[in-house]
């Protein structure tokens, strides 16, 4: 069967650190069918046009997670991103290495930072030494217990989420979406005995720096939905430890704030999160904003039907225990 081909232009990032003065983009133009995966196109370029192009790949079937890269600025697996829609939207396919990891050569990055964060969450079961796993026998889990893992076991560690994460970009100390969703997986594992400790240790290390921008959830080829698991971790951390961090204090403060009028009281929230001393530090900025927007000092009106909000809080905060 004949399929129409399109003339597809690829602008591929090329860089050999230490040898090239600066990265540059090389243009390749090929006639291909619209459903050609970007990876197939790159391999064709390497085989037929330019053998010096470096890229990482293996299975070509979205299983191994090796070929994550930036395609027209989106972090994606090259093997499952078709050129047709990219050409349609952008008129070209810009191919760049993943972000947030140093380039080794062309499209190949050094994944050390990504794996370091994975190791940091101690990704193995911590068992109770008094109750070792029965030798040679499986440990049973109920379907409900397995359901709590949500989508996390699907992760193929491709690092597309790490590449897409603006929190990692701004602060390389942030563990990133993959490490945090793996952490979630251990925190809900009924066999693991370090749940509290894991939650306690991750908080100052960046749990609360997640921006909930959901770019990780869009980048993930396996629909692990890391941003939603990070949200789950935050709620669990609050339930177990309360407001130990600025981030958790702010979330709790916001929740408590609405009990007042059903609307946000901006000043009260700043005070709840930052405390009086923290507020003093922001006084200059506060005055700058207040001069243009005096309402920041105003108390909000109380909404009609405030009693309903009060009763909803009484019924659901703290949330009633889920039935097993």
């Amino acid at each position, binding site marked *: 069967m004949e399929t129409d081909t399109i003339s597809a232009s690829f602008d591929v990032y090329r860089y050999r650190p230490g040898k090239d003065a600066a990265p540059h983009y090389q243009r390749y133009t090929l006639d291909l069918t619209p459903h050609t995966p970007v990876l197939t196109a790159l391999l064709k370029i390497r085989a037929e046009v330019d053998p010096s192009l470096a890229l990482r790949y293996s299975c070509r079937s979205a299983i191994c997670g090796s070929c994550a890269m930036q395609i*027209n*600025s*989106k972090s994606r697996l090259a093997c499952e991103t078709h050129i047709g829609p990219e050409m349609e939207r952008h008129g070209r396919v810009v191919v760049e290495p993943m972000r947030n990891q140093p380039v080794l050569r062309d499209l190949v990055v050094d994944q050390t930072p990504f794996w370091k964060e994975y190791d940091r969450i101690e990704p193995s079961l911590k068992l109770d030494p008094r109750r070792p796993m029965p030798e040679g026998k499986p440990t049973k889990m109920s379907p409900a217990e397995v359901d709590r893992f949500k989508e996390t076991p699907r992760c193929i560690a491709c690092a597309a989420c790490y590449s897409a994460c*603006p*929190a990692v970009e*701004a*602060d390389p100390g942030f563990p990133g979406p993959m490490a945090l969703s793996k952490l979630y997986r251990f925190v809900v594992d009924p066999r693991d005995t370090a749940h509290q400790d894991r939650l306690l240790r991750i908080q100052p290390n960046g749990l*609360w*720096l*997640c*921006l*909930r*921008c*959901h*770019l990780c*959830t*869009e980048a993930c080829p396996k629909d692990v939905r890391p*941003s*939603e698991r990070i*949200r789950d971790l*935050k*709620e669990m951390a*609050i339930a177990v430890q309360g407001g130990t961090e*600025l*981030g*958790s204090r*702010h*979330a*709790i403060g*916001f*929740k408590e704030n*609405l009990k007042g009028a*059903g*609307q*946000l009281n*901006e000043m009260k929230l*700043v005070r709840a*999160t*930052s405390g009086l001393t923290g507020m003093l530090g922001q006084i200059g*900025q506060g005055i*700058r*904003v207040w001069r*243009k*927007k005096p*309402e920041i000092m*105003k108390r*909000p009106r109380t*909404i*009609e039907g405030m009693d*309903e*909000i009060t*009763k*909803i809080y009484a*019924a*659901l*905060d*703290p*949330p*009633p225990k*889920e039935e097993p």
Partner: protein
Amino acid sequence: MKIAYYPGCVAQESGKELDMATRWVCRTLGIELVEFPNFSCCGSGFVDEANEVLNIAINARNLAIAERAGLDMLTICSTCQGMLTLAKVRMQDPKVKGRVEGALKPLGIEYKGTVKVKHLLRVLTEDIGLPAIKAKVRRPLHGMKVGAFYGCHLLRPADEMESESAEEPHAFEDLLDAVGATPVDYRGRVMCCGFPIQFVKPTMASAIAGRQILDAKSHGADAMATPCPLCHLSLDAYQNKAAKEVRAPLDMPVFHLPQVVGLALGASPEELGLSRHLVPTDAALAKVRSSAPA
């Protein structure tokens, strides 16, 4: 058209100019805003972090208010849009629905899930339509290059938000084009403004905001425009801090979405509350050529 107006907290407080501009634009385009003094705050994503089911319940209550009146909802904030839509999505889970109904039913609140939650951007581009807006343009913004800045929750997660695209939307650019402005393409337009961590790590939040503003600037933007008042706080009210973090002068005027539309439809800067911005908008307004090009 008639729609339930959900202004959100910020537009009633520090972002009052957004409320002013929204009312002006809606009046001019024949959108009747029905107000409900019993709407509560959407929780802004923070209540969701502290207690998910509570957050769903307070938003299911908001949705039920519009539902009772038989109206769809209009939001003017990406985060309000996100939180109300998220509540609708989560309420499809029978387990969640059961728990929330357990709290709402004793109050006589019935939630059916029939209300559509629409951001102003969508109402303008889909319900009113670009041709109708174009026909009402009195002062096309020719010569002004504007970088649209969407705000995360309007776009993502795309499957749950029913957004046009998670990372490659164009509705806002289409709207800018319809009012005569020149949309600027830059990566930062779909990125985060940093606001959610403004209280957790202000320097990092400002560095993120600064990065997006610099990106818009380096692509030639005379101004930015956003459909989210929280993004506006980050990009405008805290722009001095963003400039400090990226160690570059920014001087980037940032409009609220209805302000850009209002300007083109003939509103005065006073009617749109432009003087309430921290970064003056004069430089961007001066870019508008007085005569329409041939």
